[in-house]
């Protein structure tokens, strides 16, 4: 069930993000954010006192065991969910285009729109004319290699193509920040690899602020500049790791000893949490 007034503008959405006088620009900032999901029989604490600053133009990956509240944190940053307590600031909205464009794991593309209409949807909602939005959407369809499927409906596409549609829409909307919730989670290993490469390429071209939620450590290391490791429920930030690999990046970094080391260390740190989440859920 839903109500038509689903998205009330948050009061703090209008306040400017904290731009430090000498520090880097901060896109998203969360202070002591906790989230409790109310249920009559058993309320669940999804997040417990999370504080996080996301630099503008950075690529941040959030990694954690399933059910740790990483998706919830992403939704709170993007304003789709309200924090129960704590403050969140997002960049100021400067035009009709939303500040944060989302990519969801599945079900993000609308079955009743063609691929082109799906990619242009954000621009359509922002009030762009048909010519403008279709031109932009076509450009992005070309980038993700879906030009010839512009007029197909999603049910005619493979899972990978649907996700590329969702990613193209996020970029086409022109939002300064992209929030991705396991965008490649439902894909097979080969398609996933290809899309990871494509994502690196797109990000290096655009340098938008990206926060990406994933459960795959390799993916986080490959894509991110920074990895936020979360504990099992209730979700807290366990570690904040800087990824040392330079851009432009390619998939070859996976074979470096440094990559293997980091992967090993992150897994060591994550193992206990995964154990906990398996036992208690």
């Amino acid at each position, binding site marked *: *069930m839903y109500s038509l*007034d689903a998205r009330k503008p948050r009061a703090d959405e209008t306040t400017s993000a904290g731009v430090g006088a000498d520090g880097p620009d901060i896109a998203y900032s969360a202070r002591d954010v906790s989230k409790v999901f109310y249920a009559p029989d058993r309320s669940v604490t999804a997040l417990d006192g999370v504080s996080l600053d996301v630099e503008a133009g950075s690529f941040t990956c959030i990694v954690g065991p399933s059910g740790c509240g990483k998706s919830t944190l992403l939704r709170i940053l993007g304003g*789709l969910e309200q924090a129960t307590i704590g403050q969140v600031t997002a960049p100021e909205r400067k035009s009709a285009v939303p500040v944060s464009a989302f990519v*969801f794991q599945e*079900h993000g*593309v609308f079955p*009743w729109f063609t691929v082109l209409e799906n990619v242009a949807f954000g621009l359509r909602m922002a009030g762009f004319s048909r010519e403008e939005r279709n031109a932009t959407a076509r450009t992005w369809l070309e980038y993700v290699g879906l030009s*010839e499927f512009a007029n197909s409906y999603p049910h*005619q596409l493979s899972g990978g*193509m649907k996700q590329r549609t969702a990613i193209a829409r996020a970029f086409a909307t022109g939002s300064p920040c992209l929030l991705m919730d396991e965008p490649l989670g439902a894909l097979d290993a080969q398609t996933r690899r290809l899309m990871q490469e494509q994502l690196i390429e797109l990000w290096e071209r655009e340098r938008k602020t990206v926060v990406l939620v994933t459960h795959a450590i390799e993916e986080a290391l490959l894509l991110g500049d920074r990895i936020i490791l979360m504990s099992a429920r209730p979700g807290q930030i366990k570690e904040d790791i800087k990824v040392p690999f330079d851009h432009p990046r390619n998939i070859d970094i996976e074979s470096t000893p440094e990559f293997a080391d980091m992967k090993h260390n992150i897994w060591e740190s994550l193992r206990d949490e995964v154990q906990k989440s398996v036992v208690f859920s």
Partner: protein
Amino acid sequence: MTTMSKPAPVSARSDSTPDPMAAALESERKRTRRLTRRYALLALATPTVLLLVWQALGSLGITDTRIFPPPSDIARYAVDMTASGQLPEAVGITVARLMVGYVAGAIVGIAMGLVMGVWKPLQAAFDPLFSALYALPKISILPILLLIFGFTETPRVLLVMIGVFFILQINTLAGIRQIDPRVLEAATAYGATGWRLFRYVVLPAVLPSVFTGLRVSAGMAVTIITSVEFVAADNGVGFLIWNSWQIFQPGPMYVGMASVALLGAILTALVLGLERILIPWRSVSGRRFTLRRRPRPAA
């Protein structure tokens, strides 16, 4: 499932070199067409065979032709009644009642379902009541309607409308309940709220459920108007059937029954046609299911 949006260009090369891919596609296309034709033929064959058997049983004196007049006699009756204007008049009256009731009931039912879907208090207030009333046989409230409105067109049309209303209200509401919350969230994330969320997400998302309701209620509406005309009308196809029975004229009775059947089929076909036009994103043809172990080799 990956499907090409357009059929591959057939034989782009010169005619002298045979293109095996084009040939394979062509043979697949032919096979599909042949199957479609075969199934259409089968659909026609079943009633044809049954009618022939019926005819033969009558001619051989096995069945009593006074109660079961052979199809040829019924057809003759139909022609006579059409020529005399009796059948067109009856059909016209019934169609008018049917369409007014059906369209009005559908509009009010869809509207009610939508409003109940997006406004929770209304849903809480009416959902249990409507569920209870839905189970009530519609014909059983005819006497009340006759008491209120008298022996006029109003109770006849109203009863059709009531029957259609409940089916559409229930299906539309169910359609809204079935909307994936993740789809709504995706729409909200891209700035669709209020009217635009309704227009671009809720409406297309419930359309398939609405059409399921329209198809189910088409048959229901024909049933209701026929039974109403049995007891509370002195014209229309229902009256024709009932009256023919009372004065023991099986011929016109069968003509009436066939007309009602045809009416239901036409109305359902119209709804299906409209559905194809309005829901182009629905995957119509799935993968063909076959019990054959291996696919037949191409060409």
